[in-house]
């Protein structure tokens, strides 16, 4: 058994539109257990679990939670980041559509442990179904007294609201997300101060990914120590993988960290249609590295991914078979990030149109050796000097293919030597 269903155990079994059904299947039991615990011991369990954030960067969840818990303020906000806009990722949608109350239960445990006063669930505007399911779930949870004043007879009050995005990938970035909930254009800010100190409406704010929140009921149930035994030493627990591209059974799979990419593609995804060969895969989503077939025995693990100078733990695997042109893929990726750039900093704003021109030359077999050098240095500069993760990670696909598929670049140069 490759899969290990901790977060997705109720998917397909529970009726997402029925809180009663969720409760019947032991739902909200972990929140009730947490309500009887000391707040600090909840955070200690999270610390013992060694849980790392599931949005991609893999930041230790307990550190952020503790920093936020320590803040004293009239309002303390939480944001559940469900902006999931990076091409190739759909696991947050899967969680919200199939088991919305597990997301709420995770948020409630966090909120209670940190004395948060209100949470926003920010869902990308394209996710109409997830938006209506989550709104319904929040209403049901309010009716049952899980959200509101004096929750379940305690002296704890907590509110929750669902907000919709309006088509902007960059808004997934923390400060852009804050601006968007404030009703502004979503542009990032220079850190520090970090959101946990001064975030939404100027108050302390804890931002986590949907999947991160879904881990908390599991941690409360089995304990941090047992949780830390799942997965690998550096990456504990399970990971939801969004498997897409040229693969027979695309979908979301929950695996313990440490499973190889090949196992996911071949065993869970049942391989490539018509037995075609895999040429390359992109890891993590559009911002991740593109690697060749011979690297598929790599284990899925945060630290392994960091070797690629990228923060690509969001868990997408995009399979591309032998028919796929590297440059067509790069062109679409550059196009995506160029379109989504907020325009605030120069390397990203000015760099993307240039990248696009250069990649297009390779696509059309019109590149020169000079173009290769320009592309290489531009990609590096953007990676190193952009203000936020968008501009920093957008060139990763180019940097990685310049390494692993360099021959293909040379093949596209019109007259080698012509400068």
């Amino acid at each position, binding site marked *: 058994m490759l899969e290990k269903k901790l977060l997705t155990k109720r998917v397909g079994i529970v009726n997402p539109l029925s809180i009663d059904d969720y409760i019947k299947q032991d739902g909200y039991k972990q929140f009730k257990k947490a309500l009887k615990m000391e707040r600090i011991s909840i955070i200690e369990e999270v610390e013992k679990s060694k849980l790392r954030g599931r949005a991609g960067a893999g930041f230790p969840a307990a550190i952020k939670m503790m920093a936020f818990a320590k803040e004293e303020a009239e309002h303390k906000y939480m944001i559940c980041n469900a902006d999931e806009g990076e091409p190739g990722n759909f696991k947050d949608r899967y969680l919200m559509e199939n088991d919305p109350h597990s997301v709420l239960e995770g948020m409630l445990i966090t909120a209670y442990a940190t004395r948060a006063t209100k949470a926003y669930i920010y869902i990308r505007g394209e996710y109409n179904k997830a938006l209506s399911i989550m709104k319904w779930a929040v209403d049901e949870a309010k009716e049952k007294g899980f959200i509101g004043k004096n929750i379940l007879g305690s002296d704890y009050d907590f509110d929750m609201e669902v907000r919709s995005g*309006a088509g902007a990938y960059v808004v997934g970035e923390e400060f852009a997300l804050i601006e968007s909930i404030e009703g502004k254009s979503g542009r990032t800010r220079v850190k520090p101060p970090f959101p946990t100190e001064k975030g939404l409406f100027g108050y302390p704010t804890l931002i986590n990914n949907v999947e991160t929140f879904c881990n908390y009921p599991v941690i409360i149930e089995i304990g941090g120590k047992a949780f830390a035994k799942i997965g690998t030493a550096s990456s504990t627990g399970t990971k939801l993988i969004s498997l897409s591209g040229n693969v027979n059974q695309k979908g979301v799979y929950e695996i313990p960290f440490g499973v190889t990419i090949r196992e996911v593609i071949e065993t869970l995804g049942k391989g490539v249609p018509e037995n075609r060969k895999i040429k390359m895969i992109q890891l993590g989503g*559009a911002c991740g590295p593109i690697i060749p077939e011979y690297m598929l025995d790599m284990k899925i693990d945060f630290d392994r991914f960091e070797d690629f100078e990228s923060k690509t733990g969001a868990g997408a695997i995009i399979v591309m078979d032998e028919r796929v042109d590297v440059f067509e893929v790069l062109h679409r990726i550059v196009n995506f990030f160029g379109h989504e750039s907020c325009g605030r900093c120069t390397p990203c704003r000015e760099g993307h149109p240039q990248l696009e021109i250069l990649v297009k030359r390779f696509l059309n077999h019109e590149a020169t050796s000079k173009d290769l050098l320009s592309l290489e240095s531009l990609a590096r500069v953007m990676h190193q000097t952009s203000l936020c993760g968008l501009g920093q990670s957008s060139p990763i696909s180019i940097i990685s293919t310049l390494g692993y598929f360099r021959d293909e670049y040379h093949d596209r140069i019109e007259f080698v030597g012509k400068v």
Partner: protein
Amino acid sequence: MPLQEILEKYPKTGDHLIEVLLEYQNTKMNHYLTEEELKQIAKYLNVTESRVSSVVSFYTFFSLEPKGQHVIQICHDVPCYVNDQPSLVKTIKNLLSIDVGQTTEDKLFTLEYTSCLGACDKAPAMRIGEKTFTDLTPNKVKAIISEYRGKRHA
């Protein structure tokens, strides 16, 4: 629903700007907002007109130009691309005799590209209005579009 009626459902604070814009634009047959309407929204929420304009231009959902009654958005990203997305684009262009970014003469359809719809597990995908269609083939697309043609007077 008239704009004023929608506005009155919201507290007069700027953080509801995006929600108001979304809700109101959705009620409009041609999916766009006019300068007059933006002014009215700014006034009600007590925010500057320039802030409203900046929000409208920042988020791709908003438009200041009228669009077709049905906006077809076809996903442009890699997981759809490697699942035969180009043949869908070709089919729709031929069927409607327009290019991506254009609106049909009868103002019924606008064809656009969209970023990944998060439906890559059922690629290729497209959206028409608030509905996402998945596992598309050229034939399936033809059937969907002719169904929307029938909705002309709906």
